[in-house]
């Protein structure tokens, strides 16, 4: 009897162990699949040519597979979104964490979480019908589908992540720091920006990195507003990101073209892994204070 019970307990322990390891298995699965699928095309094209050639003509004869435009577009687009989104997000988070009266705070916070919940295709749709024509008229260019439109959409989409993580970081600043600053004669606002902000630096860096990750990984909204032509990045031109390069040709690609798309995904994945590592570094440091 006792033995039977022990076997049952061991079996159940084993089952839970397996369930616990599923996340690890999934990460391995994703990594292995991307590497296996991504390497052949890079081998065939040549790593240097693949990464640094600036023409992507996947269906031409002979085809050219250079993803430099996509890499640069992703970097510029993300940088633009960060430049626009981080100041707005950070200032909003200081207001919410330190100044807002409780009622105001709960209203604005629920607005922010709604912003996070809106599907990316809805952002894309609104961008297509408001931003794209708006940019076309404002800057007198033939087509408003551009890097600028994508940057604006991305800046809005990363706001919630930046605001939420920054609030957490600002709230974790020890009360004594702020009290000491106030007691020395600094006003509350000076205290928040000159004492609380430096003290919450790591957490806010984590917020920015999280925003970078969101922006670089976004596909659908960007695909709907950026025009999708494989140009080198320029603010008012149609551009293609790493994510949209994969998404836009996958449905009909075959052969080397298809393999090259997997290689693009692999490059994107490596970017994301770097960003994740940075995020973990900052989160750990902000926890340690």
């Amino acid at each position, binding site marked *: 009897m006792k033995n039977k019970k022990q076997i*049952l307990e061991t079996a159940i322990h084993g089952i839970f162990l397996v*369930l616990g390891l*599923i*996340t690890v298995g999934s990460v391995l699965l994703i990594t292995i699949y991307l590497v296996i699928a991504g390497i052949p095309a890079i081998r065939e094209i040549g790593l240097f040519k693949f990464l640094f050639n600036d023409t992507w003509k996947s269906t031409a004869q002979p085809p050219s597979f250079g993803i430099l435009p996509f890499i640069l577009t992703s970097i510029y687009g993300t940088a633009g979104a960060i430049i626009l989104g981080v100041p707005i997000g950070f200032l909003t988070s200081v*207001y*919410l964490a330190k100044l807002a009266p409780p009622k105001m705070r709960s209203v604005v916070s629920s607005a922010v979480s709604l912003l996070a919940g809106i599907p990316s295709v809805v952002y894309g*749709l*609104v961008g297509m019908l408001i931003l794209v024509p708006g940019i076309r008229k404002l800057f007198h260019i033939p087509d408003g589908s551009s890097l600028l439109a994508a940057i604006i959409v991305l800046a809005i989409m990363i706001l919630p992540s930046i605001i939420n993580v920054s609030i957490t970081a600002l709230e974790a600043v020890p009360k004594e720091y702020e009290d000491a600053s106030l007691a020395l004669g600094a006003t509350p606002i000076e205290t928040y920006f000159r004492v609380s902000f430096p003290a919450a630096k790591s957490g806010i860096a984590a917020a920015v990195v999280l925003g970078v990750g969101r922006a670089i990984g976004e596909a659908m909204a960007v695909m709907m507003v950026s025009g999708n032509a494989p140009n080198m990045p320029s603010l008012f031109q149609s551009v293609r990101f790493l994510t949209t390069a994969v998404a836009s040709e996958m449905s009909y690609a075959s052969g080397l073209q298809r393999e090259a798309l997997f290689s693009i995904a692999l490059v994107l994945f490596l970017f994301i892994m770097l960003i994740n590592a940075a995020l973990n570094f900052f989160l750990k440091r902000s926890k340690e204070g």
Partner: protein
Amino acid sequence: MKNQISMKRRSYINIMRILMAVSAALTCALVLFLVIYVLAKGIPNISWKLLTTGPSYLSEQIGILPDILNTVYLIIATLIIVIPLGVGAAVYLTEYAKNQRIVSVIEYAAETLSGIPSIIYGLVGMLFFCQFLNMQTSLIAGSLTLVIMNLPTIMRTTQESLKTVPQSYREGAFGLGAGKWRVIRTVVLPGCIDGVITGCILSVGRILGESAALLFTAGFAHALNGFIEGLGSAGASLTVALYVYAKEQGEFGVAFAIAAILMILTLIINLLAALVGRYFKKRRSI
């Protein structure tokens, strides 16, 4: 007191105050604008016929019933699979795992998963579920992809609520002679219901909004199917249908109708999440 603050400091304070007010107002205005714009453009396009029929080439009529059903099927199938997996993983981490290294590996993996963009999930889902496991482009392949995406969410919320089950409950049950499994079944699992519910709400929101991961795993079809039949065949979710109608067919009326429906559902989910959170907080503090 005010008079002692120098001009320079006072202008700094005022500038910062204005910047903060502008930023917070801008954020709120953006949300308000998005909600009102989408609802105003979408609701007039929602009709009974749109909601209850499929698209037909004969009458040149677009209906989104198949897409609504596909979304519901995806949500049901994903939750059925992800809940046991996520809860199991959380139970392992809080109740069984003694080796700190395994715990940190699992938690690191979960964090990594939540950072991976959905387009990559879509790609790997396509390679693994659709091609390697030969499921073809189908709702079940889409669901399984969504399972991996939502696993960290369910795991984290369950873990949070498991941490609040008092250690004394477990010790009491052990003291009465219960085995580990029995303790988990009768004491630990009932205590994590709130975490599971919160996780489900968050996951439903995420599944509703997901599109990039479904594009290549679940496909674009608009056929009207039952649940079991539907799982085996390709089908567009509401988001994918929105994308196709807006980007490829230029049917902005239908696209906005779908956007309005998604917006209303998002509002409901957010409200529900807030209410549930408040309810459980209150119950716990008693």
